[in-house]
């Protein structure tokens, strides 16, 4: 049964990718894309229900493994991928209308979009640390041509940077995986089971600590490049700013999470083997650095998508920090923050995408009076900004509050850094968004109605998570946090 559900979850996007590779040039390709994403979402919901009922399960000869932790990411990924596909339908049509995209480019976009979803879902659900690597690399490969979709010099440069940096990063992660296997095969023996996370987790106490230490450094640096941890982040703002907005939304909202999930899985193994907090400390260090550097960089930004890309680095730093602290509360908070950040950040990118289309530029100095031309886009951006800055009653406030209070308890010296960074980020983003939404403008209306349902749906969810946490959801998160220790 679990096999079938999992197969449905993975095969639908793969099949969708194939279909869109054939029919991607048809006028109804956008609808087909949304339909496929919707089916994936339904499959993920079915799988989630089952895992919550029956607990962690392995499938396909233990090659896949679903527990409360990754199934929550699966559901989140499928949901955001679905809403993004809804958003991209009118967005891409407007881009086409403006002459920025051709039919052939859209064809590529649709099929790669589905394959990207597939790669992320494989990376999340697989039990094999080697396959995690393969899927992560596949996720890079499917998005790299999307970043350069516009074929402008800037977008090519961004894509090249993304490709090379993530290629190098992911190669280091492969070296880490090899070292992990090197340590594991001495305990688990040659062959297929030595890279299975569940098996590794059982014997983590016997794995050679020196090797695992080195392995974790490589894994963290490798996957950390993908997460956008400072100092390996330089691809991220470029790729987000120069790629099409739906791609920015899924990169920020989903891919970073998936990479972080791989790091968290490795951290569980390594700290279990070392019996210390080595991996956690490293993650905390990288997390704090990313948070601080990203917050300081926010002030200098002039491009709106770049600014929110830096905000993603900041939040990923915070989440990495939370997972690095470990413990039930911090992990719970980290997962909650992952959820609300994904939802909020994608909603912001949706709103930003339409705002940019209206203004015809990504330069914040030239975007003015959004509330006047399109109250919905304007309010979407305002509310999204409030949410991402951690204003109550949005969910981001709850998770940030939890993270900061836990840090005060466990590592008091980090509190000033956290608070200062969050304060700086608040000032920077708020100061730049405020003039964009108010004021006068002469922008023309868009040729297609903007897709604002996803924006408000996401923000509504974040609001709900902020004011009322459903009991089963918090149970679920608590179980997942317990699994990660």
């Amino acid at each position: 049964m679990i096999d079938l559900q999992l197969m449905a979850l993975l095969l639908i996007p793969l099949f969708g990718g194939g279909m869109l590779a054939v029919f991607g040039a048809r006028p109804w390709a956008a609808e087909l894309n949304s339909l496929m994403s919707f089916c994936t979402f339904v499959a993920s919901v079915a799988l989630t229900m089952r895992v919550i009922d029956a607990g962690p399960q392995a499938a396909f000869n233990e090659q896949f493994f679903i527990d409360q932790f990754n199934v929550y990411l699966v559901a989140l990924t499928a949901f955001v991928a679905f809403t993004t596909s809804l958003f991209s339908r009118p967005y891409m049509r407007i881009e086409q209308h403006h002459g920025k995209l051709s039919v052939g480019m859209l064809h590529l976009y649709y099929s790669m979009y589905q394959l990207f979803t597939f790669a992320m879902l494989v990376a999340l659900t697989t039990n094999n640390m080697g396959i995690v690597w393969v899927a992560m690399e596949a996720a890079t490969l499917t998005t790299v041509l999307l970043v350069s979709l516009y074929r402008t010099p800037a977008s090519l440069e961004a894509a090249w940077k993304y490709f090379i940096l993530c290629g190098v990063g992911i190669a280091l992660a492969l070296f880490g995986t090899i070292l992990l296997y090197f340590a594991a095969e001495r305990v688990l023996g040659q062959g297929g089971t030595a890279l299975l996370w569940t098996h590794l987790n059982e014997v983590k106490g016997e794995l050679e600590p020196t090797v695992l230490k080195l392995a974790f450094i490589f894994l963290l640096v490798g996957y950390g490049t993908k997460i956008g941890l400072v100092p390996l982040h330089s691809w991220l703002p470029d790729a987000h700013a120069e790629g099409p907005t739906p791609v920015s939304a899924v990169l920020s909202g989903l891919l970073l999470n998936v990479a972080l999930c791989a790091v968290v899985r490795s951290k569980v193994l390594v700290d279990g083997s070392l019996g210390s907090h080595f991996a956690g400390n490293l993650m905390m260090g990288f997390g704090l650095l990313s948070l601080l550097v990203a917050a300081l960089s926010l002030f200098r930004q002039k491009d709106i998508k770049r600014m929110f890309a830096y905000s993603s680095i900041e939040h990923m730093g915070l989440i990495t920090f939370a997972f690095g602290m470990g413990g039930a509360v911090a992990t719970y908070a980290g997962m909650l923050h992952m959820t609300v950040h994904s939802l909020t950040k994608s909603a912001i990118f949706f709103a930003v995408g339409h705002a940019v289309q209206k203004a015809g530029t990504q330069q914040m100095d030239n975007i003015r009076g959004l509330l006047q031309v399109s109250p919905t886009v304007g309010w979407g951006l305002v509310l999204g900004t409030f949410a991402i800055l951690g204003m109550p009653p949005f969910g981001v406030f709850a998770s940030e509050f939890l993270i900061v209070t836990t840090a005060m308890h466990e590592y008091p010296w980090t509190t000033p850094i956290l608070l200062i960074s969050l304060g700086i980020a608040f000032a920077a983003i708020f100061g730049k968004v405020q003039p964009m939404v108010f004021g006068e403008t002469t922008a023309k209306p868009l040729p297609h109605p903007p897709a604002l349902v996803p924006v408000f749906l996401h923000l509504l969810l974040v609001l709900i998570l902020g004011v009322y946490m459903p009991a089963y959801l918090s149970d679920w998160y608590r179980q997942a946090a317990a699994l990660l220790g």
Partner: protein
Amino acid sequence: MASNYASQFVNLLAALLLLVVFAMLAQRRILSMINLFAWQGLLLAVSTFIVAYSTAQHHLYYSAGLTLVLKVLLLPWLLHRLMRKLNVRWDVETLINIPTTMLVGIALVIFAFNLAAPISQLAEGITRGLIGIALASVLLSLLMMLTRRKAVTQVVAFLALENSLFFAATSATHGMPLVVEFGIALDVLVATFIFGIFFFQIRETFDSLDITHMEKLKDD
């Protein structure tokens, strides 16, 4: 006795692999770099084959075959074809001059060997020390990526990096599970194709394959 010779031979191949990476680092011509890359692939295939033979692991034969086809024949051929199509014949321009690069390279090797020394103590038989060599090759390939200006050489460096990793996977750990290896091989192949697409896009847009044109994106 046979496995003793096998391990000595693999050690020799590992040393030669490192030598080839150094040769690539010192190389000024793109075509020679591609040829060296093919040699590296050949060394890799032979060492994988020997490990397969001496440890009687049949799936490594497939890896060796795959390496031979993919990295000795297909990729160099593709790169040569690309070079012809793009008409790239210039010398490689480096950001740092070559002797300095070499010195940095030696420092990296020492660093890598130091890092791997505790692991070498753990490993027995055939794999002793190979992790260190693989790590050194990985770092040298990274150095190569950093110091080269042309897109094509960066890609060759990237592939050399992949080769070093593959060497670590097959020789030092006696091969990852086959599905992982196939996955990796597939990714490398796709990556090379995407690189190819990029070459054309970059040249179309910038009229050159020099990546110094692509340093415009800044924070302000």
